């Protein structure tokens, strides 16, 4: 029976058609996932953002009111935007500088290279709550970090307790996670043909000249990609802020200094009603504004990349 049906199928489906069908069939898990968990939800969220919705009662259409409230009557929206931009603007260049420098060091042939690489990458496998607690402990007012600062004669701040120092504390902490960037830059550095350096040496070029004129231009596609993805990531800081602000998380920690955009959005959607929670419509509007901001910033970067990103001809 089955042999016969397959014979009939073969009569009707030419091999190319069969491949066509199998292709779609094999890609189906992703297509279903995309429609069900990405595209569908996105459209739903876009519509919800124009409504008043608390899950319990059906959504009520209110037009642009959510967006209007956000830009004209919501100081917390601006607060969270400020905090988030602060992190993006301060942290991104510092991480960039540190990870390229370490990658350049690792690119020098010397014993123990693999060991160093492993140690520097190691923190990146730890993304969970445990690692955040560890840093909260290290950066506690009388913690290890401040003791170290004492040794070199600096009076350490109270970090996550003092509203002024919470974000710098998060930057310090973030430096522990630059390892994956380092590995990516290192892979980029290894892809630079050695002959270029040799040719430059013959021309009498020295260390810094070589880095400036050969290494950085050839590394620029990697740098560009890293900057784009890390900025997208920085706009979505959540777990760290939630854990660090502890029982205060609805308010974003001391002086709302850790009320980052996604934390604020989370509070509006899933927080208690008393702190403005369960407003799915408003939170959806917040999500779309963030999406728009990220798109605009990525587009600006793409535009500027033409001026500084160097692509080898033929690619």
């Amino acid at each position, binding site marked *: 029976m089955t042999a016969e049906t397959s014979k009939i199928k073969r009569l009707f489906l030419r091999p190319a058609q069969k491949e066509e069908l*199998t*292709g779609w069939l094999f890609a189906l898990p992703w297509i279903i996932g995309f429609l069900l968990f990405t595209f569908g939800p996105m459209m*739903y969220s876009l519509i919800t953002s124009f409504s008043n919705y608390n899950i319990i009662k059906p959504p009520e259409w209110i037009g642009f009111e959510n967006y209007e409230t956000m830009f004209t009557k919501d100081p917390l929206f601006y607060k969270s935007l400020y905090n988030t931009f602060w992190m993006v603007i301060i942290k991104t260049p510092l991480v960039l500088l540190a990870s390229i420098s370490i990658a350049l060091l690792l690119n020098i042939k010397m014993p123990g290279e693999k060991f160093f690489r492993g*140690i520097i990458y190691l923190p990146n496998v730890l993304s969970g709550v445990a690692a955040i607690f560890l840093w909260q402990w290290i950066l506690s007012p009388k913690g290890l970090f401040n003791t170290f600062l004492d040794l070199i004669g600096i009076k350490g701040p109270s970090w996550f307790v003092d509203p002024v120092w919470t974000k710098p504390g998060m930057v310090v902490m973030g430096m522990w996670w630059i390892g994956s960037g380092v590995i990516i830059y290192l*892979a980029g550095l290894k*892809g630079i043909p050695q002959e270029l350096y040799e040719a430059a040496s013959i021309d009498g070029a020295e260390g810094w000249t070589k880095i400036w004129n050969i290494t950085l231009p050839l590394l620029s596609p990697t740098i560009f990609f890293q900057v784009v993805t890390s900025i997208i990531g920085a706009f979505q800081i959540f777990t760290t802020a939630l854990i660090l602000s502890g029982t205060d998380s609805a308010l974003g920690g001391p002086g709302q200094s850790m009320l980052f955009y996604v934390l604020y959005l989370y509070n509006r959607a899933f927080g208690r009603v008393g702190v403005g929670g369960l407003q799915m419509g408003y939170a959806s509007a917040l999500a779309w504004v963030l999406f728009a901001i990220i798109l605009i910033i990525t587009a600006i970067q793409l535009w500027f990349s033409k001026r500084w990103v160097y692509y080898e001809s033929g690619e």
Partner: protein
Amino acid sequence: MASQKSIINQPLPKLFREWNVGKVAAFTMLVGISIMFIVPFLWMISTSLKEPSDLVGTNWIPARFAWENFRDAFSFGMWPQWTTNTLIITISSVIGQVVSSSIVAYSFSRLRWRGRDLLFSLVLATMMLPGVVTMIPQFVLFAKLPAFGFQGSKVWINTFLPLIVPAFTGSAFYIFLLRQFMRAIPMELSEAARMEGAGELRIWWSIILPLCKPVLATVAIFTFNGVWQDFMGPLLYLQSEKLYTLQLGLRQFEAAAGGSPAWHWLMAASLLVMLPVLLIFVFFQQYFIEGISFSGMGGR
């Protein structure tokens, strides 16, 4: 490349003989940086073995090794249950991710069909999509999808389903990674198998997958790490304490203490929760390095 290789292959003393001032300086800096990266771990281990009275100040060696911390830290909560939950969610997600991402990647790399390349650019585009945009509608969706009493719930919320099922639809980055690898496998292999009458499912399973073992390992390890340490997903979807994962369990220390937790217990518990991830890293380091190096290739 050839000149680099020859340096590596030479015995160590020669390598040391080629040292100059610059190299010594770079080496010293790397030693310093490595110490800075490793100190937090050591501090964590040290704290986890201290008595409460020993926590003030910064002595590295505990006055007395308080091994009982590793028992007492777990005196509250439902840790055995949370561990089981985390294992169930993690292992199911790893299986789902490996199977689905590889079969989708197979379609995108080794089968020809109309719309394939267009759809693949869509896969790549979703990698740039901020997860926040889908967070709320996904929650609403999971609050409506019926679970028919699975884990005692009418809807998907407060079951493991929202955390496991999406893994079975594949993930853009892993599909991309596997596709690039599968593309490099000679097409003749598939054609020979087709001649012998093998179906695509068979070719995928018994020819292509065995050749992809290193990348599959990378996918499995990254998924394991991501799911084991996921905080936001369980936070959103798991409400009753008996369904918690270890990450949510750790947060109970904060809640139990009303702000400042008992650090010696918290560090002991954190250390144990991190342990599987650390062990995997120690044994499979190269898969991490390869996977991460690849993720930077998006720029090339």
